[in-house]
Structure formats: C-alpha cells, structure tokens
C-alpha cells in the first residue's frame, strides 16, 4: 500500500510541510514483530522441536508509513490501543530498529519517550532528579546547575528529601516533566504525557510546550486523548493497524478517530462539528455547532476575557413556532459551568417552516478559567417542559487560555479594595 502525505486541508497559520526544514522524515517505514506460535523460551523445547520454530505470525505493527514532520511543529500521532502508534514512536526514538524504509532525523533527539524513565521509588527526589537528568543526557555538572530550576518549576521545594514512593502521582508527574524539559534536545518525543495531571498542570505543560516550540523545538506526541490533540497539536496523523489513515488538521483527524473508535459509519462530515447521525427524524435537527470570535471567525480556542459566540445550526422538518434553543457548557471534568436557553430570556424565536434552517448565536463574556470546554446544544418545543426535539452532546469544543490557575470554575471580573480603619 502506498500512503500519500500532505493531502490535508491546512488550517491558516500552521506550518505546511515543505515550507520549513524537516525535523523528521519518515519514508515507507515498516516494522513487524514475530510472534511465534510456540514460544521457545527454553533450550529443551528448541532442541525437541527444531523444525516447528520456523512457524510464527508476523504482526505488522507499522506498515509503510510516510510522513514528514517539520521543524518547530507540534505533531500528534493518534490511534487506538494496539494501533502501532507507540511502536512508530519507538522507531523514531531509535528504541526499535525498523525493518524497511528510510528514517532521517535532523537534529538532536531526546533519548526518552516517557516521563520519569529510571525513577527509583526508594530514593529521594533530590537523588532522582540528578539521576534522571543524567539518564536523559545531561552531564553531571549540567544536572547540578539546573537542579534548582527543575525543582522550582515543579514547585516541590519542600519535598526534596522525601522518597518518591511517598509522592502523589501528580507530584511525580510534575517532577518528571520538570526534568524532561531541561533536556537539550531539538526534537522531543512524548508518549501519553498529558494523560495524568489536573487541568491546570496540563495547561502548564501546554504553556511550556509553546515556549519550547517558540524556541524552534519540534514535539512529537502520541496519545489517544483527542481533546489534547485538538488543543495542542499543529498537525496530527491517525494510525490504525499500523497504517496511516489520516493526516492533517487535528480537529479533522480527531473526528476520524472518533468515527473509527466508536464504530460509527465512516463518512466524511460536510462541516466541522456536524453530528454523526444516529438521531431519529424529529421536527427539528441540529446540523452543526461551533464557536466564533466577536468578529465572526470560527475558533477552537479563546483567551480568557474575550467575548465568545456559541453558534448552533438547526434544520426544521416541520413547521415550528418559537422553538426553544438551549446551550450547555461543560468543562473537562464534565461539570456544567454554564447553561442557558432562549426560554430564560423569554425570547420569541419566530416561526420556521419545514425545510428551513436557522443559525442561533449566543454571545457571552468569557469569564471561564483556562480549561477545555464542550458545548451541548438542544432544540425543544415552545411549551413549558416542551418535548426535546434534538440534543447533541459535546458537539463543539473550546479551549480557554489564561494565565491564572485558581482551580476555580470561573474567574469573574473583580476589583480589590483594602482600607485600613
């Protein structure tokens, strides 16, 4: 099978392959594992069955993958468990030797693919930071010089002499991440880094990645967390059974992933944010939802404090009078942070006839804290407690950036006044 690359619709402002020097060039790379039918772990078995040993299954973990990753790009590799994404990353990292194809790495590559490699739970954080830094490629002297910076970033000054086994998993990740970003590598390979840690830590990681990216580093990131891909990546590729299925804009790749993962019919959605079907024909159907900035541009991310417009497109199958449109925003842990509907404002939405479509825009001041939010729109009949005609859970997604991590849900505009009496 020949795989074509760079067929993706490129979002504006993203690095296009070919326009920048490459960081990693992968050409027709394949990697297979031999899975013997009978595992020969002992010499006796081997001696008794010398002929049978030739029979094995070939598991094609990576199958003819071709991709070029540009310098300064944040590139995501996504796929289900066992799809070959981690194997591909290990091939890039030089942990596995590839069977076929050409692999070219331009620049210094980080030697590890997971945070906290070589951490020893019986040693203190102090020892582990130095050991880990040396393992990741720093010299003894560099490790000592950067020690304070590492601990400061992890915010673990008070826990230096605590053994790692007494650390919480969040503290461990913070420590591991702080060491990892000290590594002098031009290309970072990371397997599932953001799967752990709370939203504010993820945001901190993301900010740090942005800083690394700004200094020309390339980041290749493997995950099955689609929201992370959509939030962080410039481009992504989808792997299934070792083959590259999709490459391009992260939102597009994430939708393909969801289609495959949830066993839905594989069809190309006409619009971003289009529902995936499965709704019984009713009087009104939601055909799309998205976010816009105040000037009408479609956005997936917004800065804290800027006005944001949540948009909903509905197609009517029957004539309806004053239907009620609802908007629910939930954050990354699934808590509803904001819910409203046209009924609350006693808004007369008007009369719609069958076959008509309407776009409903709801503008709100974005006082949400930095996190990842999803929009669940709904349409209902006008009467009180009216029949819900269509609900599409988490149809559109929005990432809010901000610089303050309060752990709260909102960050309302406020002012302080201190007066001595």
């Amino acid at each position: 099978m020949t795989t074509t690359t760079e067929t993706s619709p490129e979002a504006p402002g993203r690095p296009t392959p070919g326009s920048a020097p490459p960081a990693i060039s992968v050409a027709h790379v394949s990697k297979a594992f031999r899975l013997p039918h009978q595992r020969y772990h002992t010499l006796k078995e081997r001696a008794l069955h010398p002929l049978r040993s030739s029979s094995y299954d070939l598991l094609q973990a990576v199958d003819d993958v071709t991709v070029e990753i540009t310098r300064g790009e944040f590139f995501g590799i996504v796929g289900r468990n066992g799809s070959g994404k981690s194997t591909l990353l290990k091939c890039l990292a030089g942990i596995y030797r590839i069977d076929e194809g050409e692999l070219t790495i331009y620049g210094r590559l980080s030697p590890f693919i997971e945070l906290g490699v070589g951490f020893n739970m019986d040693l203190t954080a102090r020892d582990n930071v130095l050991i880990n830094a040396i393992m990741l490629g720093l010299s003894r002297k560099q490790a000592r010089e950067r020690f304070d910076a590492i601990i400061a970033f992890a915010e673990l000054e008070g826990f230096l002499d605590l053994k790692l086994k007494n650390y919480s998993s969040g503290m461990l990740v913070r420590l591991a991440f702080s060491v990892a970003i000290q590594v002098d590598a031009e290309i970072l390979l990371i397997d599932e880094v953001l799967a752990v840690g709370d939203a504010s830590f993820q945001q901190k990681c993301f900010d740090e990645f942005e800083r690394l990216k700004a200094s020309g580093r390339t980041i290749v990131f493997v995950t099955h967390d689609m929201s992370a891909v959509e939030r962080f990546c410039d481009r992504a590729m989808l792997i299934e059974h070792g083959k590259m299925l999709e490459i391009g804009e992260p939102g597009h790749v994430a939708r393909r992933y969801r289609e495959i993962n949830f066993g839905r019919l594989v069809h190309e959605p006409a619009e971003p944010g289009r529902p995936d079907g499965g709704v019984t024909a009713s009087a009104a159907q939601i055909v799309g939802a998205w976010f816009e900035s105040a000037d009408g541009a479609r956005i997936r991310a917004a800065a804290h404090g800027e006005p944001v417009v949540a948009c909903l497109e509905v197609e009517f199958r029957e004539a309806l009078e004053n239907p009620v449109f609802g908007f629910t925003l939930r954050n990354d842990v699934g808590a509803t942070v904001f819910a409203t509907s046209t009924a609350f404002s006693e808004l007369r939405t008007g009369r719609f006839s069958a076959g008509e479509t309407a776009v409903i825009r709801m503008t709100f001041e974005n006082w949400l804290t930095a996190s990842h939010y999803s929009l669940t729109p709904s349409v209902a009949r006008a009467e009180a407690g009216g029949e819900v005609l269509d609900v599409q859970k988490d149809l559109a997604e929005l990432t809010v950036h901000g610089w303050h991590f309060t752990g709260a849900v909102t960050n309302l505009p406020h002012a302080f006044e201190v007066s001595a009496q």
Partner: protein
Amino acid sequence: MTTQAVGRQYGPAAIEDDARRFLSLTLTLATTDFKLRYFGSALGYLWSLMRPLMLFGVLYVVFTQVFSLGKGVPHYPVYLLTGIILWTFFVETTSNNVQSLVVREGLLRKMRFPRLVIPLSVALVALFNLGMNMIAVVVFALANGVYPHWSWLEMPVLIVLLGFLAVGVGMLLSALYVRYRDIQPIWDVVSQALFYASPVIYTAFQYKTLKHVAMFNPIGAILTQMHYSWVGGGTIVRDGHAYPYVVHDAATTAGGAVFLLVPLAIILGLFCLGLWFFTREAPRIAENL
C-alpha cells in the same frame, strides 16, 4: 543543524558514538545500584566494609580450624580470603548479569541508550564491592604478618584480567537470557561447579599431578598468581624458628610461562564471544524482552 541518523540501520546498538554519555550512564546506573544496596540501613555504607570483615571471620574459623584445607600453605588465610572475594566479584558480575536486561525492561523500552551500559554497570557494582572487600583483606593480611611488597602491583593487572573474563561471560549470559529463560538455573549450577573445580578454598597444589591442568582454568591461574603477588617467598617465624617458604607463581605451577597462553586465550576468547553476541543481539533486545 546536523543529521543525526539516516536509513535502515538507525536503531539501538551495543555501543554508540557518544562516549561521554556511555560513561556517565554506566557510572550513574552503578552508583544508584550501590547506593540502594545499603539504603535505609542504620550503618549505611559502613556495611560494605563491615560485611566482608565479619564474613572473613567466619570463613577463617571454618576453613582453618574445622577443615584443615590450608595445611602447609603459607599465609593460607590470605589466600582463602583473596580467593573468596575475587570469586565473589566474578560470580556477582556473571549471575547478576543473567537477568540484568530483563530487570531493566522499563529503561530498555522507554529510552535509547547504548545497550552495553547495562552489563557494564553490573560489573562496576561488583567492582565497587571488590574494592571495599580488598580493603578488608589488606587489613587481614597485615594482621596475618604479610608485609607490603612490590609484587602487590601485579594485583590490579590480575583483577583487570578477571574483569574481562567476568564481563565477557556476563555479556553472553545477559543476551542469551533474553531468548532462553533456562540460562538462569543452568548458570546457577555451572557457577557452583566452577567454584569447587577452581582452587578458591584450596590451592592449585591440591590438584597434585594435575596442577598444570588447573592452570588452564583462568580463575585458577589468576588466584595462584594472586597468592604469589601477596606473599611471594619469605620466612615464617614459628616457635622462635624462622622457616623459609616459597610460593609458586602461575607460570611455575603451569610448568612454563608458555602454558599461561591457554588461560589468556580463554579470557580473550570469551570476551570476544560475549561482545560479538551482545552486539549482534543489541538492536532487538527491547522487542524480544
């Protein structure tokens, strides 16, 4: 910007071109292991010195008072203790190496580094222990009436030779174990047999007419030469009389220096075999684990 690696051969290897990283990784893994051994005990590092001294006390009583294996051997306690600590170094390097790659699976699967670092760091830990033990033996030797002599300078050379042998076997065993899990019990038995077959608790002269053959065993030759470099020749004062004695070196025991080419060839051969096999297996160790 430099191109780091191109093409199909890109992948893990036994030795990579960054010597500084190779050394610092080996050293870091070894010191961490050494640190962990006595971590949490009240006496800490003092144990690494106390343990051999106490062990020697036991061995001394057992082998000189209970079994009189050392009858007629000048400075037998020194011979015995040297033999024990060198054997310990050999068996620690080889036995700990059997599972070394499997134990470090997490590192091998998550990080790219020269694979040879692992067997070498195991050997280095054994070498640290040997250094500690050696201090204890020197204390024992001086107490036993052995005085410092120029021939002591031979000892580091002999230890290096033993190191080559141990690392060679270690590389072979660690790489073999990834494929065949029965290397573990096999090596347990083989190393026990080798212990009793080698002149560790007795001297090469107890082989009597076969003592030339005993020198073909590299461990036998090294221990015999070790004994010579400790005490050489001299006199022992007993009951007010001075008794002269002679300790033969390995060449004399073997019946000519030329025969020592056999143990040397075995050391070199096993080292090269181990290195060749390990290098051949290195690119696929991570996936075969």
